[in-house]
């Protein structure tokens, strides 16, 4: 069978060989599948939930001095992470589980001690165990921000709480929902970088590659089979990780096809980096430090285990351009919020740019011998 002149039998044989070589290589299977699983289990057991910060969405419909004063006052609290936006945006974020409260400042806002402020906070139904504490913290913060400068005690003269609450049905996103997409991104990175670099450099160093090209096969078949096998292995690994994640309570809000597209695009970026290293390095000793130098910063700075919000601004600004950051953002948008490709423009643009850059570097650095 030779559709378009492609020898399917030759490609298939190389593909099967490539899969067998990976599956039978214990080190490759351990580092690319079991290690991410172990990391996921460890972080899943540690469970970094229950932080006392409050994600507060602010909707300023007053736009006067009083509302600005309140917003500035709230921003001064360390445990409040404020964002501003329209009512629709913020309520959508609340439902998606990104915020704990949406505080609406009504038009004509002019708070006076002892009078009803008109402030309404929509509260997330997620994490009910923490709800009372969070509401108390918000009341206190708003009271302080409004009246502390005038010396009036929080709560007003008649002790009426400044904020009234309304519940909004929201997604209850736990740490597992944050962690699993990050682990998926990390696994794709590790597979691309390490799954290719070491195996390929080994074949190059021992001369197995040279033996292959003593036959009439073309390098394109070998490379094609390698890439195809890694992509398939990658999809299987992601499926396993997601399956185990779901068993541990991960909620999947997106569709699997969209997720698959993100995973494949990510795999292409990291495979290109892997082939660039493999094509450049003469032996495993040259490949290892470079692969680690590329993967370690991303593992810790691209938001695999912890939200990147916790980083200092300068670091967050730099690391937002790393390939794995785009990948993780896109994966989380799909898994946690059911995003579709159309709403992932910036991430897809970033990933696409990296795919082109890494592919060009790989072509430039690649040497067969």
């Amino acid at each position: 069978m030779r559709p378009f002149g492609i020898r399917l039998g030759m490609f298939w044989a190389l593909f099967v060989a490539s899969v067998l070589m990976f599956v039978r290589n214990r080190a490759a299977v351990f580092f690319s599948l079991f290690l991410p699983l172990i990391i996921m289990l460890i972080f899943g057991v540690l469970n970094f939930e229950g932080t006392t910060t409050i994600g507060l969405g602010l909707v300023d419909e007053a736009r006067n001095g009083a509302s600005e004063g309140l917003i500035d006052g709230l921003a001064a609290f360390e445990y409040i992470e404020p964002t501003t936006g329209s009512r629709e945006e913020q309520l959508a974020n609340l439902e998606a589980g990104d915020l704990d409260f949406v505080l609406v400042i009504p038009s004509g806002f002019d708070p006076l001690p002892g009078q009803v402020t008109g402030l309404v906070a929509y509260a997330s139904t997620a994490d009910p165990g923490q709800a009372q504490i969070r509401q108390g913290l918000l009341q206190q913060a708003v009271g302080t921000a409004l009246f502390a400068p005038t010396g009036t005690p929080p709560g007003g003269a008649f002790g009426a709480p400044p904020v009234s609450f309304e519940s909004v049905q929201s997604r209850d996103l736990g740490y597992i929902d944050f962690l699993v997409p990050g682990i998926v991104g990390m696994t794709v990175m590790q597979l691309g970088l390490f799954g290719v670099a070491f195996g390929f450099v080994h074949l190059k160093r021992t001369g197995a590659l040279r033996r292959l090209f003593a036959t009439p096969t073309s390098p394109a078949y070998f490379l094609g089979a390698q890439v195809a096998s890694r992509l398939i292995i990658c999809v299987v690994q992601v499926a396993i990780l997601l399956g185990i994640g779901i068993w541990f309570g991960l909620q999947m809000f997106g569709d699997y096809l969209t997720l698959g597209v993100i995973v494949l695009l990510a795999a292409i970026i990291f495979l290109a980096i892997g082939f660039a290293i493999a094509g450049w390095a003469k032996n495993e000793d040259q490949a290892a430090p470079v692969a680690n130098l590329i993967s370690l910063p991303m593992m810790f700075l691209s938001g695999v285990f912890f939200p990147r919000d916790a980083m200092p601004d300068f670091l967050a600004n730099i690391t937002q351009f790393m390939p794995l950051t785009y990948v993780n953002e896109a994966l989380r948008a799909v898994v946690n919020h059911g995003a579709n490709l159309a709403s992932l423009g910036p991430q897809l643009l970033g990933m696409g740019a990296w795919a082109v850059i890494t592919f060009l570097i790989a072509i430039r650095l690649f040497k067969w011998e």
Partner: protein
Amino acid sequence: MPTAIVAVHDLRKRYGSLQAVDGVSFEIAEGEVFGILGPNGAGKTTTLEMIEGMRPIDSGTAVVDGIDVTADPRGVKARIGIQLQASSFFDELNLVELLELFGHLYDREVDAAALLADVELGDKARSQVRTLSGGQKQRFSIASALVNEPRVLFLDEPTTGLDPQARHHLWGLVRRIRERGQTVVLTTHYMEEAEELCDRVAIMDGGLIVALDTPQRLVDVLLGRGFTKARVERLANLEDVFLDLTGHDLREEG
């Protein structure tokens, strides 16, 4: 010569300042076992690899089974079998899987069991190459070069590093291949090997062929020049021819 299955004309290859092969010409008849002898660095392997299509040719021509190597290296590779000097295979695959994979690279189904039986490795079918002994590795390497029933089999120092038993075993295999009518081109350091196996030998030194004939005639020529051994047991053997032509000094690979 009836039909030349390999025809090499004025082949040259330069690496930087080193003229590795400096105008080599010869023809090999179908069914012949042809030896290329020479000290390390004489240009044997480079010559072989240029004929095989494994290395670009600077100038000159090499035609194998009617196909010009420069014009169609894959066409040549499809018709020949190559045993590289340092052959290595995919570690995770067993012998049968490797032979079947190599078969597919030539677009054909192979009888792996028969090929392994051919090189007396039938009982190692499910082993991996790394578990084989040196002699077994070389025999497997030859089996892998036979999957496409090649018109010409190229063996680059097939017995280097083997003990005498393994070497004699391999000689038996080469003779059987020859009896089937396949042409064999081999390089070697061992004069005894060349005398045992080769119909004709080319002796290379410094990138040139310094002698080309049957082992017996080369010896006769040397004796005809009045050569005598210091201690006469046999009048002379091919090793004397070799050393006479290429010098006695030990040479290390550069």
